[in-house]
């Protein structure tokens, strides 16, 4: 669309503009175009606004093709998703506890080990076992699947058979150990 000489100032457009490069853009605008050719005076950002910004806006309005909803359920990506979800859940719980302990004195809340254990002691036994299973299962699943990931990083079990065998092993072991932990 732009003739090469006139487009000379746009030479830097695709890259991160540092201050020095911005200065050279100005210098080039004055220096490189030979006499007799009109020098473009529009800046880079307004070029982008004119040409690119409407495209970005339109992309936000377009719908997304179905992906997770239509892909065949498979152990591979279900377990991978569950690994991330359980990791996030346990981490949120851990962060809540740690940050809560750090911040509680400022807010005036009494939040220490003694308070926590005394609150837990008042909960009925059945609810305690259920809660312990709900807390333990993401933790054991994430730990065991994490070991499976580390095994992959040493290039072990990198076959369909290996992935599925280790996958079922993780599912079984994590359930059994979570039940065992809940009954302690």
């Amino acid at each position, binding site marked *: 669309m732009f003739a090469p000489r006139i487009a000379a100032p746009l030479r830097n457009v695709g890259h991160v503009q540092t201050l020095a490069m911005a200065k050279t853009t100005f210098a080039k605008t004055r220096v*490189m175009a030979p006499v007799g050719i009109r020098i473009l005076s529009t800046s880079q950002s307004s070029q982008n606004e004119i040409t690119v910004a409407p495209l970005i806006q339109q992309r936000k309005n377009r719908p997304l093709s179905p992906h997770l909803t239509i892909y065949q359920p498979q152990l591979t990506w279900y377990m991978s998703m569950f690994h991330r979800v359980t990791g996030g859940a346990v981490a949120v719980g*851990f962060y809540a506890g740690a940050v809560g302990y*750090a911040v509680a004195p400022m807010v005036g809340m009494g939040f220490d080990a003694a308070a926590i254990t005394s609150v837990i002691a008042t909960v009925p036994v059945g609810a305690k076992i259920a809660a312990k299973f709900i807390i333990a299962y993401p933790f054991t699943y994430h730990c065991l699947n994490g070991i499976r990931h580390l095994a992959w990083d040493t290039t072990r079990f990198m076959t369909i058979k290996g992935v599925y065998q280790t996958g079922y092993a993780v599912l079984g072991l994590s359930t059994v150990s979570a039940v065992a932990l809940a009954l302690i």
Partner: protein
Amino acid sequence: MALRLAASPLALSRSTPSLRLAAAMRSSSALNARVYFHATAGPVADSQQEDHVRMAYSRKGAADQGFRSSIAKNGRVGSIRAQNTHLSRSTASTAGQTSDEVTAAYKAVAYKTITPNQVHGSYHWDFERLLTVSMIPLFAASAIHGAHPITDGLLGVVVPIHCHMGFDAMVTDYLHPGNVGKWGNKAIVWTLRGVTVLALVGCYQFNTSDIGLTELVKRSWTA
């Protein structure tokens, strides 16, 4: 095949280091070399230009290697834009911009070339795996032996960092600049760093002025 467009002759007189480099490249039989020049206005711009020219050049054999090794180094492929456009050898005698650069004005702003850095690439990966591996004996020791200042202290450092790296990966995947904007992403990343620092402080305080992480789990689990 990208068009080679003639540059102003004034461009060629400016930058000696890159000119020598480009001349060396041109004289070799580099099919995939992408030759393009900037005029420079001083020594500062020269060094930046060197860097930029280095990025742009990819020799024939090195083209594939460079891309693959930069993937291996950088882990996440999305952060690198491949520079392997191949040009006609006959027009290698003139330096200038390609039509790709002219149409670069139409590309989304989020596209940015980044120099690969192993700190964000393979070193980050190594560090993450080492940390994760260290958690296995740490949890085992804590479960078997019970409370101990050293294991509790290490847990209070290793677990928050592991959580931070996991959250960081999730932010990179789901809350990237293309989604939430450049400043939204920055805000989220820095908020995450602040919260991780708070978590580290909280763990340290709990380990020193309270019963410690292992003992807390033991007591609350059997409460």
